[in-house]
């Protein structure tokens, strides 16, 4: 045992320890072994939880070191066009798009680089994919589709609606598709729709005056990027006039004070889109990767708004929802 601590042996132990540490450090730096991929992220209204889900999943990949560059249109269609006009898609391995408008615009310009869409309500009707199984083009992604009947059954549990306002951006094709879906079920649920189209920020006050004077029982917010971006102002006005607001996008309840929403969790949607992106980066053609939808819908209730509007939620809804106080 005494020989073990001789100076020569000590140096050897030190070298071995350093070698072990270096090996461990090398193992902890997987980036070296991973293939580098570049992704352009085209956003219409800034980062949402869906992008956080996308980035978290894609950065956790053991196969690729993904370098992302985000382009934000800041809710401007002109800016979106400008971004796409200046974008050299060939520099990227994949393009991520948020929303129907950004996806359609990207598809018009980019044909050779895979596009992964996210938060597109009706990708088939919008001409983005041919079917859920195969897009038959360079696109795949994740949809936030919600069966309107489910949304209205939720609403019927707490509200008796006869006049329903439908507020939408008349330039967004996704909103028009959702308007068509609601029109199909109005007979079944016994209500009439009053359209409240908005085109830009200036048209919102007039649209709200129209909603208030029509004595609406509730206003429905489709999954529409422009409406979402201005939801704070719109919902505040509706709450002031005690008109309940029903949304598809959960953030409208958690951040803007809408009464209730039934829709997918956006973070989960981002994870699903990332799974498709990783498959495409791994070598699959986008047409071979089926579009995804979330497995469960989530219910969000804003109790503060409910108290203000004098609406009582039944116990089972409170117990099984994400409640915002």
């Amino acid at each position, binding site marked *: 045992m005494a020989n073990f601590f001789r100076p020569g042996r000590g140096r050897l132990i030190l070298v071995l320890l350093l070698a072990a540490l270096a090996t461990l450090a090398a193992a902890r730096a997987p980036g070296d072994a991973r293939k580098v991929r570049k992704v352009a992220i085209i956003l219409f209204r800034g980062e949402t939880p869906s992008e956080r889900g996308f980035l978290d999943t894609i950065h956790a990949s053991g196969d690729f070191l993904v370098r992302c560059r985000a382009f934000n249109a800041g809710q401007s269609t002109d800016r979106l066009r400008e971004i796409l006009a200046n974008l050299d898609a060939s520099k990227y391995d994949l393009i991520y798009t948020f929303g129907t408008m950004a996806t359609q615009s990207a598809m018009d310009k980019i044909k050779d680089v895979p596009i992964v869409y996210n938060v597109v309500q009706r990708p088939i009707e919008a001409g983005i994919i041919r079917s859920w199984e195969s897009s038959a083009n360079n696109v795949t992604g994740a949809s936030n589709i919600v*069966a309107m009947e*489910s949304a209205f*059954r*939720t609403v*019927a*549990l*707490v509200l*008796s609606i*006869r006049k329903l306002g439908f507020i939408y951006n008349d330039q967004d094709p996704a909103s028009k598709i959702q308007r068509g879906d609601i029109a199909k079920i109005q*007979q*079944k649920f*016994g209500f*009439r729709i009053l359209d409240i189209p908005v085109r830009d920020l200036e048209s919102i006050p007039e649209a709200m005056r129209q909603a208030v004077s029509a004595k609406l029982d509730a206003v429905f917010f489709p999954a529409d990027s422009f409406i979402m971006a201005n939801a704070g102002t719109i919902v505040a006005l509706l709450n002031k006039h005690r008109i309940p607001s029903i949304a598809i996008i959960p953030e409208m309840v958690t951040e803007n004070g809408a009464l209730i929403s*039934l829709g997918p969790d956006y973070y989960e949607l981002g994870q699903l889109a990332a799974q498709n992106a990783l498959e495409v980066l791994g070598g699959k053609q986008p047409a071979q990767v089926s579009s995804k*939808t*979330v*497995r*469960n*819908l*989530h*219910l969000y209730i804003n*109790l503060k708004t409910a108290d203000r509007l004098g609406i*009582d*939620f*039944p*116990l*089972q*809804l*409170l*117990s*099984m929802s994400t*409640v915002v*106080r």
Partner: protein
Amino acid sequence: MTETGLFSISSTETLMILRGFIPTVMVVAIGVLVGKLDDSRHQSTLTKLIDYVFLPCLVFTAIHRHPFDLNEVLQIAVAVTVMVCLSTVAALCLMRDRPGAAGWNHLAIIFMSSGNLLLPLAYVLFGSEGLVKGIYFHLCVLLLFHTLGAYLVKGKSDLRSFFRIPFLYPMALGIAAASLPLPGSENLVELAWLTEKGIHIAGLGALPLLLINFGYPLGLIELSALRQGLAGGALRIVGGPLLAFAVIWLYRQVGWLSMERGYDILVFVDRRTTEALLILGASLPSSHHALRMEAGGGLVASQAESATLLVSVLGGMFTVITVLFLVDAYVFQG
């Protein structure tokens, strides 16, 4: 801020349960007071008002807004039939009715207050969805009461009296109205909505009246009879929920009330509401049916079944609230 393993006193759900249950007990207490003060015995008038005016409005309002689902009706009907049949076996095996009583006390043990108590509680706690399910529950109980119940006390079923219950007809009307298209003319639509609004207001009026009607005879029961009702009352309020939990466990095992969450959370919420309603219905105190059938005028009948009713009501104040917390913890959040 009292936190326990089962519930938090400050949670929204706890407050919601208390906000539903406490006012219900208070209105029943008002009914007890009315019964004590009303020397002229006007309960039969109150009962007629409820049966012929307010309850039909409530039933129509609830049913005509709810898409009819046969599977939902069958789930409730089968559960109620199983629970009532097993309660009958338990009551006949464990309880002896007094000589010559023709099984009236058994009826008080077997049948729960599915009308006077369940409908208001279901509405207050589970909203319109709960009310509709409560109406189906009540319908099944009434059918069983006029068949099995009548057979137990009279030796023959009495389907004719079942079809004389006004409750059935607004229900049929509501189902028909739910499937009718909206009138084409704007004026007709406005008129229909206005009429519906009036019916709805009258329907909401049924809720406190049902509770007052439930409380009315309780104050007339002599407390000295309490001992006679201990076993029967306990069987009603403890055996009932145990049976309901067993039935629900069975439903889940066979997949009729699946725990699979699925895409649409509302389908899941709907299944859990059915379970909650069945458990709540089964845990309620005895009904007035037996008293009304025996006494005719809706007042207190003879001692044994009156005592069972009183014990089940007093005990139910603790068991029902416990059951509600269990439902919230293990059915809704479990």
